[in-house]
């Protein structure tokens, strides 16, 4: 009796590490398919549209609202100290260092990651991937690698757009609605936001998050149990695992980049 929970734990541990191993082998196979895409850029461009461009709307809207909320909350806090002129710095640093890469990665997982998992999972369930293999076309190179590259390239661009729109959202609330001085908003931001410390680190974060998010998405799709329930579970796992991975990695990266 006492062995049962131990056995279950062991079984789950083996399954977890087995899956982790498969995910890494899968990544290696995907990366070997990437150089071939230089000869067929059209495959990546098509995926840039479906992974990147179609995610743009949710990024724009979310970025705007997040920036507006930051403006409002920042103003309410800063005004108590008479430091409301620093609102631009607060909004910009929050977005560039943290919220831009993190929130856009979470949105990316919800919109593009889940779509990638469902698409690849359904292709597996309907034997399209098997069909390609039998046509001597490697699905890793033809299907997975272009999506992986497109997701990896899209993420930093989406995060940058998120941050820019967010800054304008904060500007609209702070300057437009709450009456902060226009020049102070921009000049303080310009003086305090450092290109290498803040912007570059934010870009590095968004590349890392993009890599992890799209890796999870394509792997979950490819490794799905080929049934409707399996695809549904894989899609859910993509969103949950990406969110956990992004938030966990964000702490690690922040500690490495900004911890003294």
């Amino acid at each position: 009796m006492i062995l049962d929970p131990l056995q279950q734990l062991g079984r789950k541990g083996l399954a977890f590490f087995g899956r982790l191993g498969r995910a890494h082998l899968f990544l290696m196979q995907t990366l070997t398919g990437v150089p071939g895409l230089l000869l067929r850029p059209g495959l990546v461009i098509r995926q840039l549209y479906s992974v990147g461009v179609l995610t743009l709307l949710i990024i724009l809207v979310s970025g705007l609202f997040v920036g507006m909320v930051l403006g409002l909350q920042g103003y309410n806090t800063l005004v108590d100290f008479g430091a409301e002129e620093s609102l631009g710095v607060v909004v910009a640093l929050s977005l560039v260092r943290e919220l831009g890469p993190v929130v856009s990665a979470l949105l990316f997982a919800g919109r593009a990651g889940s779509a990638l998992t469902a698409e690849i999972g359904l292709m597996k369930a309907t034997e399209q991937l098997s069909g390609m293999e039998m046509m001597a076309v490697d699905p890793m190179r033809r299907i997975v690698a272009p999506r992986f590259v497109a997701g990896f390239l899209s993420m930093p661009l989406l995060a940058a757009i998120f941050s820019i729109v967010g800054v304008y959202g904060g500007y609209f609330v702070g300057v437009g609605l709450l009456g902060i001085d226009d020049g102070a908003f921009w000049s303080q931001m310009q003086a305090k936001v450092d290109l290498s410390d803040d912007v570059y680190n934010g870009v590095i974060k968004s590349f890392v998050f993009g890599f992890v998010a799209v890796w999870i998405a394509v792997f979950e799709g490819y490794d799905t149990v080929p049934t409707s329930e399996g695809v549904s579970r894989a899609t859910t796992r993509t969103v949950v695992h990406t969110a956990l991975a992004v938030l966990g990695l964000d702490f690690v990266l922040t500690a490495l980049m900004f911890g003294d």
Partner: protein
Amino acid sequence: MENTMRETDRNGQEAVVQVRGLCFARGERMIFDGVDLDIERGKVSAIMGPSGTGKTTLLKLIGGQLRPEAGTIVVDGENVHELATRELYSLRQRMGMMFQSGALLTDLDVYANVAFPIREHTDLPESLVRHLVLMKLQAVGLRGAAGLMPSELSGGMARRVAMARAIALDPMIVLYDEPFTGQDPISMGILVKLIRELNDALGLTSIVVSHDVQETAAIADYAYLLSDGKVVDQGTPETLWKSASDWSQQFLNGEPDGPVAFHYPAGRFRDDLMQGGRAR
């Protein structure tokens, strides 16, 4: 080449596919346990058996998508499971497969689906690709459906498109996985006719996996009956109909009871009833 070998089949004819001592298991369950069979070049060979006997698995083994526990599968002189990935993909270019579901790429229309293998494996100019695709679609009677999406096709049409795609690269062998399942009589008649005619007109070798006895027997030159992981009977359809095997007679005539029992193995019925409704 080290992997290359030429073999002859039971009649001294060249066997384009030769399976020897094939063993394959899924978990604890043995799907194939020492299967031997030969597929003669230029013929339509049928592999029949009840659902769940591993007919589709056999096609995947022949195509190198699955690896057997033991035994060899030699296709056109090459031992499939000893080939490197590049060689296996090269062999697959000489094979076409029609999946039960059609397995059409759902984001491409009929034309692009048939053009897909041609575009992937050749550098032919688009005008020539167009000619080839229209020829293949004309052969299956669906030239007029070139612009339709897979979601707009009936089940029978989808399989005909899959058939056109399977022959797009003029393969040596075409594998058909349950081509007749769930088809109305007209679609079934069309598919039966197409498999036979394409085989003869294009000089193919066809392997048809099916449990639709009448249709398969009507076009097959030779048939294997599989059950419980073994070849239980084989021969031309005419000889199989006259087979002395009780199993073959039950399968071919669709009898509900016989060597394959109607009842799933169970204890005594009386004992179950006397257990007073205890849930199992």
